[in-house]
């Protein structure tokens, strides 16, 4: 009775790929395609960014940072949401794979967070005259980075994988509940203390080509994230499932190649 409950039926259910041994080869097959897509999109995006998009009337050329800055900022937030989603799925359905996905996503999310911060800082120096101001948007991005670090530090510090999974899932969910609270509180805090002396100087009407470049770069980031996550989750699956038969077969195939 219990046994059947633990293992969902391998029928045509939606959760078919929740079985690690099915997902492992699927991930291996898909990752290169997404990586390829990411490369192609990046090239197109960079071409749009540097050779098609016009010089900005107010900011001059500095604005070209936007083509990585904004996609990175978007990604860093999306990735956290997806992480929280997988965590919730893991806690509710008790599927190991969901936890692994959450853990595989975190470093990439943190990486995008850093990219947004660094590019923002480098953009800020010439436009605002300072690498950093305590603007609401910047600050909530910084706190998001701490949330990522907290998640990663916690899951790293716990050795028992089952405990690490669940503890990470709890903190990811608590964080996700807090992200909007943090965002709005920070926004309010800032506007309370000082007017809009520093706000993002948006180009009045963003040229269509600029928008196109940004969107293409955003798509590239998506493809990149998916590819890297799939690559990262594969060895995680093997380590977790190492006592299962299919892993032994998989390792047999690898023997000699590593």
């Amino acid at each position, binding site marked *: 009775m*219990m*046994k059947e409950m633990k293992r969902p039926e391998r029928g045509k259910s939606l959760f078919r790929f929740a079985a690690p041994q099915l997902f492992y080869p699927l991930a291996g097959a898909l990752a290169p395609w997404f990586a390829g897509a990411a490369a192609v999109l990046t090239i197109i995006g960079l071409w749009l960014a540097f050779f098609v998009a016009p010089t900005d009337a107010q900011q001059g050329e500095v604005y070209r940072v936007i083509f990585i800055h904004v996609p990175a900022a978007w990604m860093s937030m999306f990735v956290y949401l997806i992480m929280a989603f997988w965590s919730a799925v893991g806690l509710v359905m008790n599927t190991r794979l969901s936890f692994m996905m959450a853990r595989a996503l975190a470093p990439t999310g943190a990486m995008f967070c850093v990219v947004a911060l660094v590019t923002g800082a480098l953009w800020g120096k010439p436009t605002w005259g300072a690498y950093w101001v305590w603007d609401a948007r910047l600050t909530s991005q910084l706190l998001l980075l701490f949330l990522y670090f907290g998640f990663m530090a916690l899951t790293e510090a716990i*050795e028992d994988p089952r405990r690490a999974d669940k503890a990470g899932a709890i903190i990811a969910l608590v964080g996700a509940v807090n992200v909007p609270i943090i965002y709005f509180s920070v926004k309010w805090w800032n506007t309370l203390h000082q007017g809009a002396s520093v706000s993002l100087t948006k180009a009045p009407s963003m040229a269509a080509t600029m928008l196109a470049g940004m969107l293409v770069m955003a798509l590239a980031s998506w493809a990149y994230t998916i590819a890297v996550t799939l690559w990262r989750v594969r060895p995680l699956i093997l380590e977790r499932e190492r*006592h299962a038969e299919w892993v032994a077969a998989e390792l047999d195939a690898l023997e000699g190649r590593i």
Partner: protein
Amino acid sequence: MLYAADLACLKGDRLLFRGLSLQVAPGAMLRIAGPNGFGKTSLLRILCGLAHPEAGEIRWNGRSIASDRESFHRTLLYLGHAPALNDLLTPLENLRFACAAAGDDVDEDVCVDALVRIGLADQLDLPARVLSQGQRRRVGLARLFLGIRRSLWVLDEPFTALDAAAVADLATTLSDHCAAGGVVILTTHQDAPFAVPPTVLDLSEVAA
């Protein structure tokens, strides 16, 4: 009646046991034996529901303990390796708290009697911090002397640090509990003078 089927326990890279099944009827005493590090403590924690087995299931009176945690824990008394003593509280306060936390309603006098009975008459209001090893152990064990009706006792090395007289006393109490229809599951490396020698489950024979 405690029934466990097909249990497996994996720690890190090491499979401690698998396919382990056991069954303990009312009135029986089961001793989990085996050399150091063969998984006795791990097994007890799994049987209590504190840890989850890698595989297998456990039933108490026919119902899975995972699905019916509350009523299982209402009949369980587990004493682990750590004696669950707070160093700032006296033995009496510690004992009363342990009972209240477990949901038992126990009178102060009954607690005092149990502590005196177990040989802590002089230490009733010392903070637990200054007690000797054996005395600390005794405070934890005092819950067994309260006459509370919890039928399943799970004890991890209860004789550790006790002197010979205390070992004999405890062995008698355990035997009595079984005689009254209770169940005792314990581990120990020491011999103790039980009224009826316990059934032994040797993990070195089950070992994966």
